């Protein structure tokens, strides 16, 4: 738009033209987001109230089931008397309220009172639990979904907790001035740049009960120990335990996944975030603390931990969001959700119902929306209560 042209258009037209070009800039992305995000999300919401078999993808075969999907997903039933149920719910709510009140007052309490409060809460929680388990037997209408939810919570909690501890520890170690530190950083970063699928296949092999490296190592250690015991005159075979059937046993499948996750992420992007945060801490703080005679733990507690607070908060939020959404790939490659559904996360549950098991797209969409709502609530809680704890 050169001078003469400018003069001929009014200010209003110019503004409209401005808007038009701006929209044109946005248009490619906008269309994409509309078609591949907004449209699917709306469709998914509608599908959540329908039943639709994936093997016959005709619009005519969609059946409206109303809230049926959601009530089947989340529905619970019990044979307990109404008094018992109301009483149980009241007790649980009271416990929850007490917990929230305590959390709000937490910083104002003295240490012994804190301990007393925790003890009282634990006792009350135990009592409520005892009452629930004695009088109220809840039965889920879709136990598999609740199991998947529980699996997701367990994997997510251990995953995020372990990640924060391990990665911070690792970052502090890798932040030291040692000659070979870059080599270490590289080795620890290797799993992050490897194909995740390849690593899951690798770990499935490592976890093999008979010929897996982990169990070979465990057996070799046991036998070596027994050999030593026998050599000094002890019994022939002192230790008789057998190594676990890692992925084949419902009790050990989740720990196996968690361990693998820690190995995978110990030196990965989370560690780099912490490393960046540590590199951003001014050295003077440590020098001043040293002059004041603070020991290593005090320095960590008073300087390092608060200074990496925003990073921890970020990792926590992202970890919760991703943790709830994740778990499909591991489960698909290593266990197909088994054994007995022990590694079926919500994510795997949704895809399994949509594409493999029932192929009911409506039910899967409803489950996806439940997951969405859950993530939203958790994120809001995190923002609400987490940000206060962060010292900037």
């Amino acid at each position, binding site marked *: 738009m050169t001078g003469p042209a400018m003069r001929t258009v009014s200010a209003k037209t110019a503004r409209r033209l401005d808007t038009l070009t701006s929209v044109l800039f946005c248009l490619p992305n906008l269309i994409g987001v509309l078609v591949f995000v907004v449209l699917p999300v709306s469709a998914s919401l509608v599908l959540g109230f329908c039943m639709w078999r994936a093997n016959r993808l005709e619009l005519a075969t969609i059946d409206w089931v109303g809230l049926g999907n959601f009530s089947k997903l989340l529905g619970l039933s019990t044979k307990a008397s109404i008094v018992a149920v109301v009483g149980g719910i009241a007790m649980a709510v009271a416990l929850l309220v007490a917990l929230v009140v305590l959390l709000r007052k937490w910083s104002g309490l003295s240490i012994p009172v804190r301990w007393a409060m925790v003890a009282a809460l634990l006792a009350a929680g135990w009592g409520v639990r005892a009452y629930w388990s004695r009088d109220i037997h809840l039965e889920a209408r879709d136990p598999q979904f609740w199991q998947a939810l529980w699996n997701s919570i367990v994997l997510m909690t251990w995953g995020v907790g372990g990640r924060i501890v391990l990665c911070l520890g690792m970052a502090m170690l890798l932040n030291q*001035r*040692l000659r070979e530190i870059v080599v270490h950083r590289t*080795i620890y970063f290797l799993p992050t740049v490897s194909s995740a699928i390849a690593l899951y296949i690798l770990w499935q092999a490592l976890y093999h009960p008979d010929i897996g*490296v982990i169990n070979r190592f465990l057996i070799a250690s046991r036998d070596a120990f027994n050999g030593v015991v026998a050599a000094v005159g002890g019994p022939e075979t002192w230790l008789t335990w057998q190594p676990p059937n890692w992925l084949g046993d419902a009790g050990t499948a989740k720990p196996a996944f968690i361990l693998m996750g820690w190995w995978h992420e110990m030196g990965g992007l989370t560690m780099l975030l912490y490393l*960046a*945060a540590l590199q*951003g801490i001014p050295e003077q703080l440590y020098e001043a603390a040293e002059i004041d005679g603070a020991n290593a733990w005090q320095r960590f507690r008073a300087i390092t931990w608060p200074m990496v607070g925003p990073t921890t908060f970020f990792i926590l939020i992202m970890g919760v969001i991703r943790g709830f959404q994740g778990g499909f790939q591991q489960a698909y490659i290593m266990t197909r959700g088994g054994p007995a559904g022990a590694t079926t996360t919500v994510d795997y549950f949704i895809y399994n119902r949509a594409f493999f098991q029932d192929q009911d*797209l409506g039910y899967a969409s409803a489950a996806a929306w439940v997951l969405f709502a859950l*993530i939203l609530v958790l994120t809001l809680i995190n923002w609400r209560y987490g940000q206060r704890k962060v010292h900037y």
Partner: protein
Amino acid sequence: MQFRWRKYRRGRLSLLQATLVRAVLLIGAVTMAVPFGWMVCTALKDKRTMDSEPYRWLPKMPSADPTVSWSVDYLSASTPDFEDVVLRDFDETAAGDDRAARQGAGSLSMAVDFAADQTPDRTIDLSSAELPDTPVSMLAFWLRGDGSGHHLRVTVHGDGFVYRADDLPVGFEGWKEVHCYFRQEQFDPLGREVVPLRRDPPGDGGYVSLRSIRKVELTAVAEPLWSRAWQRWTYSFRKAWQSMPFGRFYLNSLFVSLAVTLGQVLTSALAGYAFARLRWPGRDKFFLMYLATMMIPAAVTIVPTFVLMKMLGWFDTYRALILPLLFSAYGTFMLRQFFLSLPADLEDAARIDGCGKLRVWLHVILPLSKPALATLATFTFLGCWGAFQWPLFATQSMHMKVLPIGLSAFQDKFSVQYNLMMAASLIVMLPTLAVFLFNQRFFTRGIQLSGMKE
């Protein structure tokens, strides 16, 4: 937030502290490296090494002895019981569809087991044997290789000629039937692999009278050590590469990732510029909407997108793999934040000089944003290269699979043959690992621009 790969704390550690830190780091590094080490070792093994008991941790070196030991099964070493073999061959094994191949002619049949530890090269002397005067068209072998990279040379003295076949490759696993024809043409009615026995002096032999065969010599010829080692160690890789079209998977992955990266960077840069620098009504509301879409789990969108692809007839095509990923709220967000940090003066100067918006974007904004664009491109490419869920559901046929899906299909096919699985995994992993090891900054520099940027 500053981050540098080669930056450390300034303070020095005491000797005790340094030793402790070193010890912990070393233990951790071993934990990290052992699975990778096992992966490489397993991929370098052939089947025989995998099956060997007790378990071998390291791949086997080929034996330094150039002559391999072997035995002839059908014929005992001292008294060759030929009648048996030949009659058996004529009457029993020449049954069913095999009969067609051998009609009117017999074959001399034996089994050679390279794996058995018995005597080396041997000559089967038939001079004293009473053999029927039957025309024989071929010499049939059952070979079992030991994976040591040997070739077998077969020499047959018959009808006053010398028939010879060099370089009969000895296989790696299991028994394999080899047919050496006296006929000079290489045609087998059953479509089997045939080896011609060349006549010396040359000429068409066709059939040889069984009675005239005086001597059969089998000689194992060793290749040089490096060649045998190469053959043995790359066995799993070659087998894996042949069993699935990994080349095609590579091309698919590369094409899809490049297309997605290019498209995403382009659309994100355009939209990011509009959100950062252009003024238009509803801009910030729209931007909030964009941000909100980042919270939506993939599980919500994948099912309807899958239906959409089916209905458009795009299922199992490149369109399905690429188009839904071209538009990213994350990229738009990241680039908008970066554009906001650029000085406005340059842009204004360009405007005053008469540049339109597109020109400003192309000639001022983009060149200034190279680091951010490169970071976004890296992250997008890596994300797309490793993406699993969407390609798994959006494609079906073998020639449309991308690398991770191909690897998963390979796992379904060879679920417990760990040497093959590890070789396939390494085939998939090696390029990214190589890029990483040669250019670590490329992978790590994005960290200060991504998530943590406030």
